[in-house]
């Protein structure tokens, strides 16, 4: 089922504008992530789709039908909450079968349905247990099973992985992606973890202050973040965002950024202030001075396992802040020594104001 949001606005009593006339289309069978920092309105958006929040204005349509005025129970959506919301006094079977019980499905049939779904999620051995006797991963699967058992049109997941520990989270992530793939049910999930969004979703909406800043496929969001905000939010190591200035010289326009002279995208006037973004992964380290590199002193080395994150402190006067570079293992520079961070020009992003201006037609 498709989900379509039109001009959705939610103002809470007290004047907090959680959603600001937001438009969004989510396609049939899509695994869609709402990503953003806390307080950006992503959970309010999810709850508005569920019907748990009544929008101040705007409309929600599921499968083409306007459901804005329908109560949550009649929207045919299932939600998995961050805390799983399993009923502690019911065993696993009763928990999974609960929505069917409310829909007055006869006991034998709903228990058969619960057992079937539980079998698919490897919960068959646990049907008689109470939630208190289950591990976190098992509880999560029971919550998923409860959502699946009533065959809804749409799944809504609120931070589905955040209550699991790091190792289990990776397993659950793979499991979740495969499950959604098999079921083919339109799924919207909320996360503040960019890695989770990139790994799971077909498409991601990055949200900030009640608005959607960018919608796109994970690779698009990762490689061409539309604003410096998205750029800083996406990526396991934060992107280097450095202030720079356009200087039009004899050999054409160039960017002067933190001591480096770099190629400028066309069409920028002389003296224009820009923000130059380059991921640490797309920056190389040079031991010899270069003109197209940021000079600095090696301040910190952070071992990432197969690579090392190097933080350079800008040596140049007037240059502010730090530049980070990821180097392969075995190539770490000595701490305290001078080094030059060389951005790969085809990976560089140039922002003017809040908009991406270059490179045009770069890697998607």
């Amino acid at each position, binding site marked *: 089922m498709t989900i379509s949001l039109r001009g959705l606005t939610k103002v809470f009593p007290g004047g907090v504008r959680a959603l600001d006339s937001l438009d969004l289309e989510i396609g049939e069978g899509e695994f869609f992530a709402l990503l953003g920092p806390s307080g950006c309105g992503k959970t309010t958006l999810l709850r508005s789709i569920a019907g748990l929040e009544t929008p101040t204005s705007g409309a929600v349509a599921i499968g083409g039908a306007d459901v804005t005025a329908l109560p949550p129970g009649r929207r045919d959506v299932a939600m998995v*909450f961050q805390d799983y*919301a*399993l009923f*502690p006094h019911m065993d696993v079977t009763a928990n999974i079968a609960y929505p069917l019980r409310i829909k007055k499905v006869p006991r034998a049939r709903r228990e058969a349905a619960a057992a079937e779904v539980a079998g698919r999620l490897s919960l068959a051995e646990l049907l008689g247990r109470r939630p208190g006797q289950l591990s976190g991963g098992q509880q999560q699967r029971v919550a998923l099973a409860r959502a699946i058992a009533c065959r809804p049109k749409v799944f809504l997941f609120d931070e589905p992985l955040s209550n699991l520990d790091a190792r289990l989270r990776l397993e659950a992530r793979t499991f979740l992606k495969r499950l959604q793939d098999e079921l083919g049910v339109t799924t919207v999930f909320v996360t503040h973890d960019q890695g989770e969004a990139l790994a799971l979703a077909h498409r991601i909406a990055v949200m900030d202050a009640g608005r959607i800043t960018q919608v796109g496929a994970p690779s698009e969001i990762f490689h061409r973040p539309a604003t410096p905000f998205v750029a800083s939010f996406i990526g396991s190591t934060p992107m280097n965002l450095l202030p720079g200035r356009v200087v039009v010289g004899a050999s054409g326009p160039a960017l002067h950024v933190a001591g480096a002279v770099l190629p400028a995208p066309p069409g920028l006037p002389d003296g224009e202030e820009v923000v130059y973004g380059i991921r640490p992964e797309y920056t190389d380290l040079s031991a010899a001075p270069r003109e197209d590199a940021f000079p600095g002193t090696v301040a910190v080395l952070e071992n990432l396992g197969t690579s090392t994150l190097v933080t350079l402190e800008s040596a140049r006067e007037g240059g502010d802040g730090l530049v980070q570079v990821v180097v392969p293992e075995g190539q770490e520079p000595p701490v305290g020594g001078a080094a030059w961070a060389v951005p790969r020009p085809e990976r560089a992003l140039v922002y003017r104001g809040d908009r991406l201006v270059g490179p045009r037609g770069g890697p998607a």
Partner: protein
Amino acid sequence: MTGPAAGTDAAGLGRARAVGFVLPALVLIGVFLVFPALWTIYLGITDYRLTGLAAADPRVVGAENYTTALGDDRFRTSLWLSVQYVLGSAVIGQAGLGFAIAWMLRGRRGPVRRLVEGLVLLSWILPSSVVAFLWIALLDRDGGTLNALLGTPGAAWLLDHPMLSIIVFNTWRGTAFSMMLYAAALESVPPSHLETARLAGASTLQQLRDVVLPRIKGHILTNMLLISLWTFNDFTPFLITAGGPEGRSEILPFYVYTTALRGGQLGFGAAVSFLILLINLVFALAYLRLLRNRNRDHDHDHDRDRDRDHEDAALPGPGPAAVPGPAAVPGPPPAPGSGRAPASREAAG
């Protein structure tokens, strides 16, 4: 409030000093609680009277007072009226209304909530004598506020419906406690559980049955225990109906008061008091047993199958909501001679 720490000596006082700390409290309890209670039991088997020969030289009459009481129609009527009073004003009235108000105010903030809470609390904190006077003024046959409001001049509420009057009175008076207790209990119900039920299409009643009540069962039992004991021992409505007319609102505490002090049969009154104490004890034990069963269920859940992952500390288990201990059980029933019900409500308010 008393008693040395069981088992280990956490404070490091040593036995002698620990006893020293506790002793004053134990002495006070002994003098003012245990001794009168034992004295009441003793009086109950005598023919002790307020005046006359038996006042100077009471005789031990054995179980005669008890057989008389149990065979007395007036006692049995009193007991039945007390049961009505407890069921009507505590279980249905206070607990029911208190829960309804708490449920409606749940999640609400702002002036409406503060106003309702304020009004309900006001009836709880006003002194009994003041409240009784207000209710007499409200229900009065001539010039009563209620008759003026309803346009029923001359309706004698206190004469025609004495039990209903004191049941409504006590409901009004005591709802605040249940409301506050249930409001706190409802806070412990995770919103996500209610929302899961809503998303499944559960009606309000189904949400109450499947999500709320199982979660706050312990609070309900504790509340029922406290308010039924308080109500069973409540003496305040005596100030409104004095048990009348013709004993039609004579609940047990009034019966004790009238027989022991007005009728002067102190021994007999003591015997009835002891019966009230036994009834209270049965109440309390029944509730405590229910509570314990419930807790045992929970422990059972926790102990079995401990093959959980280590992240479980952060997960929502069926953590038994903190239930106020039964330590707040009110004091003994009215002893003859005290002339009034235990002041547990006043003390709590």
